[in-house]
């Protein structure tokens, strides 16, 4: 009877020397195959007495299991080695750049517009846009600027070669204020049947135009109009809303604002708004950012509302101005040149 232990030891040695899975199967056959040494031993059991057969059989089975375990272990080792080899071969230089990563970006003015919209949406304002070729009535008359009024010369107006239904020349809106009237009219009409009108809270951003072109004026620019009308919205509320708007927009709780009396035909009292930063390169300087005021009763009437019952404020702010102050841009013309080297900075 050969020494089972040495057969097992032999199998282990042979398996360990094998590095190819096919050879491993051949080696397995040498021990466990039909003619394998362990199988042969099993065949010899038949001639033994029952008790010895049981003892021998157990010993051989034990050896067989040990060989199978060694085989499985070696298979695993080989598989793992193979996997490791493959993984090593497949390794990438992960520092190489990815594909199609480049993104474009919004224009800085639109970036500002979006921020302004989200600030005002957070206190329940709607956002409205409207026509840029506008009628004389919406741009001026409805806003309390009759024809020939000296206030009209405050704004140099572009006219186009087409006329409105009243025969007056159409124009490029000089401010976003016509949207006050358009939006409020829609709102008032929608609430005509209700005893209580929901407040009018809207901002109207968009392109505006004036005959002016130099380092600090562009013939086309952007404004955002704000309007809040209800039964009790006062000038003090305008101050509160605007100051908080500036602090939110510039993310600076230390901004101060001053309201200077001014004149716009469509508001009364009217105010120019200056702000000042408490730090940074503009520290301490008063910077004009907005025109504002309590909506003039004639304008409220043009909304289709009773000015005795409804009061509130309006303001108009230049988006270019806010953008320049926010990002430290010194030259207005950069906004309209379409130069990618400038625009990509806002990605």
């Amino acid at each position: 009877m050969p020494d089972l232990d040495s057969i097992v030891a032999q199998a282990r040695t042979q398996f360990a020397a094998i590095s190819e899975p096919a050879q491993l199967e051949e080696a397995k056959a040498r021990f466990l195959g039909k003619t394998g040494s362990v199988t042969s031993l099993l065949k010899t059991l038949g001639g033994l007495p029952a008790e010895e057969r049981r003892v021998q059989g157990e010993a051989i089975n034990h050896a067989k299991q040990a060989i199978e375990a060694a085989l499985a272990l070696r298979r695993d080792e080989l598989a793992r080695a193979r996997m490791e080899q493959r993984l090593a071969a497949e390794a990438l230089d992960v520092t190489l750049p990815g594909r199609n990563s480049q993104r474009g970006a919004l224009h800085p003015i639109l970036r500002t517009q979006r921020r302004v919209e989200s600030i005002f949406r957070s206190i329940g304002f709607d956002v409205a846009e409207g026509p840029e070729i506008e009628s004389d009535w919406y741009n001026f008359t409805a806003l309390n600027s009759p024809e020939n009024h000296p206030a009209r010369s405050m704004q140099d107006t572009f006219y186009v070669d087409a006329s409105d239904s009243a025969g007056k020349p159409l124009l490029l809106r000089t401010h976003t204020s016509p949207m006050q009237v358009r939006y409020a009219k829609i709102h008032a009409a929608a609430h005509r049947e209700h005893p209580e009108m929901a407040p009018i809270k809207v901002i109207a951003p968009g392109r505006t135009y004036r005959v002016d072109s130099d380092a600090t004026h562009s013939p086309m620019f952007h404004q955002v109009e704000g309007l809040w009308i209800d039964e009790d919205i006062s000038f003090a509320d305008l101050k509160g809303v605007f100051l908080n708007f500036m602090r939110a927009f510039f993310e600076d709780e230390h901004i101060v604002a001053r309201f200077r009396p001014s004149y716009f035909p469509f508001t009364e009292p009217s105010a120019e708004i200056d702000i000042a930063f408490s730090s940074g390169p503009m520290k301490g300087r008063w910077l004009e950012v907005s025109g504002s005021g309590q909506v003039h009763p004639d304008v409220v009437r043009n909304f289709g509302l009773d000015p005795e019952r409804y009061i509130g404020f309006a303001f108009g702010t230049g988006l270019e101005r806010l953008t320049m102050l926010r990002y430290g841009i010194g030259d207005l013309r950069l906004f309209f040149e379409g130069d990618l080297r400038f625009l990509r900075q806002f990605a």
Partner: protein
Amino acid sequence: MKFSESWLRTFVNPTQDGEAIAHALTMAGLEVEELQTAAPPFSGVVAGRIVSFAKHPSADRLSVCQVDVGDAQALNIVCGAPNVAAGMLVPCARVGARLPPLPGTDAQPLEIRRASMRGVASEGMLCSARELGLSDDHSGLLALPAHATPGADVRALLDLDDRIFTVKLTPNRADALSVLGIAREVAALTGAPLVEPAMPAVPATVGDALRVTVHASDLCGRFSGRLVRGVNARAATPQWMKDRLERAGQRPISALVDISNYVMLELGRPSHIFDADKIAGGELHVRWGRAGESVALLNGQTVAVDASVGVIADARGPEALAGIMGGDATAVSLETTSIFIEAAFWWPAAIQGRARRYNFATEAGHRFERGVDFSTTVAHVERITALVLEICGGAPGPIGDQILSLPERPPVRMRVARCRKVIGVALAKDEMLSALGRLGLPLRDLGEVIEVTPPPFRFDLSIEEDLIEEVARMHGFDNIPALPPKARSAMFNAPESRRSLFTLRDILAGRDYQEVVNYSFVDAAWEADLAGNLTPIRLKNPIASQMGVMRSSLFGSLVANVAYNLNRKQSRVRVFEVGRVFRADAAVPDGPLTVAGVDQPMMIGAVAFGAARQEQWGSRARPVDFFDVKGDLEALLPGDLAVRFVAATHPALHPGRSAQIFAADRPVGWIGELHPRWVAAHDLPGAPVLFEIDTAVLVVTAVPSYAEVAHTPPVLRDIALVVDAATPAGAVLATLTAAADSRVTSISLFDHYRPAKAGGDLAESEKSLAFRVVMQDTQRTLTDAEAEAMTQKLVDAAVQAHRARLRA
């Protein structure tokens, strides 16, 4: 409005300094734009008397002067000025003096040191007006007034620390277009008393009068005037008047003109002084102009008038533009001896816009179109007369004063409660009364109401809010708290079925497009070439011809963006814009958000040029093509929008590589490769691909609705069809889609093959299209037979509609 502090202080003299007054005015709505001293800072300059002078021993152009500056010893100063004279009083910068840097230079102040000039010691410098920053005059030494004492400080002597105020006035405050008007405001703000100038009547010493007939009371509400005979028009304007005029930005011209300008600045009263001897026919007519008439004006311009423009006419015809500018023929000159002084009330509505029509502006027109006090014409004629007599002499005639129609000044009532509500502050009524009273407004306290009768110098007080504004101004906007509003809070949410334009922007930015903002007005050639629009909406007053028309397409601007950036060494340009375009369209009515006759849709457009993808180590570089950009456009489409791309020609685009976009059969945009003609014209090294589409169809989207997920296995069938090469794949797909029933969940084109030449089973004029059809029934698994039947139905439809055949 520009004036000096010293002049202002003759009317109101508060204890506050110039800075404080300026701040108070600014915060009251009279914005002080500039506050400067009459001369830039300098020090150490005193009056010096040139006692004697001699030629410099070794320089022809230099003099060596002995200058008395009040010290025991005269100073020895070398000077190069041509007007050096013994006895002359001049500014002398002593050693240690600091002179202002020359205007326009960034130089430091000049410090005067003891120096040797060509071997002669010099102990200071004698100065010209320019060297002191007083004016540009560098012709010689500045002559100081004869009464000056040697050694006196020149700044004090010439009052050079006097502050010059420049106030930017809003159009409603015509009353503040004078030193008196500003003084009234300063008195109200500071509480200092207002000293109005006395204007005693100047008695007539001759009986002469000029006949004036006013024919239009809607033009001229009041006309006052008088003759003065025997004036000396050559008399010199006194220095005090010249100084005040100069410090108010007015160049002194001649005594009579200066007096008229002076009173305009002093009292806000534009007046006109005619040469009475040049008035043809010896009488004046105030009337509207007549078509065909013209006026030769003081400024040398001759302008045509019509019935909407007021004139003052004599026997020859119109002589002056009423309330705007006098005429050349009757202007005063140095030879003038008889004058007619006129002060009138012109109705603002009769003056407004008239000067602008002639493209000029005048101080008089500026004031009259805003409104000038109608109660003081006679007093102001007296004031002018007094000054004329004082400076030019003469014998005045009686004042003629015709009143035809004057503005009414109905009382305006302000409710105390309304005032508090609008301002948002519980102001005491006494404060309101005090605020209005300080402004010189006649008022009555009626309990809960304050009644104000607007004075004739105010043209901006006619409704309750006008008074509320005055109260708020006087209270101080700064003293009104900034309250975060307490309001009913209502949620405001944008509907889920609407996408914001920012969503569209984000999609394109995420696909590597940079947003640009281009002008809405473009070159007419762009419209003609790139939009085929020969009748664009034109600007009547463009700032430049290449910004003359409103664009009807974004294409012109986008192509220009490509060219601009290529010229700046950018090889890959991908930009987009969201903006309105403008087209005349008679079908557009006036509506809540529309203007009749003009369609102005908000478009989104993009252009891509250069490599399809950013240069990268692992991708093969290739130029961007139609289908790259079409994919970008498709990414913008809402999922539920049925869109068709129809091959069509567009003036900007390659005719074989362009499509018109239809949404629900409405044309909404274009996509295509730039036409080779424009590629060449713009000198582009390749063809950009562009699109633009109306955002109206992109911002509306369906709210998702759940459909049961099928648990049965899908059945796939591929159909390869051979069709004529000219048959659009989209048309075949549409046929298949129409023929499919609800069990077909998708049909997609997965292969397109067109042989370069005939071969295999395809003729040269044919192409092969392969579609994958996915079928699924939510309730049960489809049988083979059912799938085959459906596939056959689709094939039959294609055969029928497109003479397609199954590919072998």
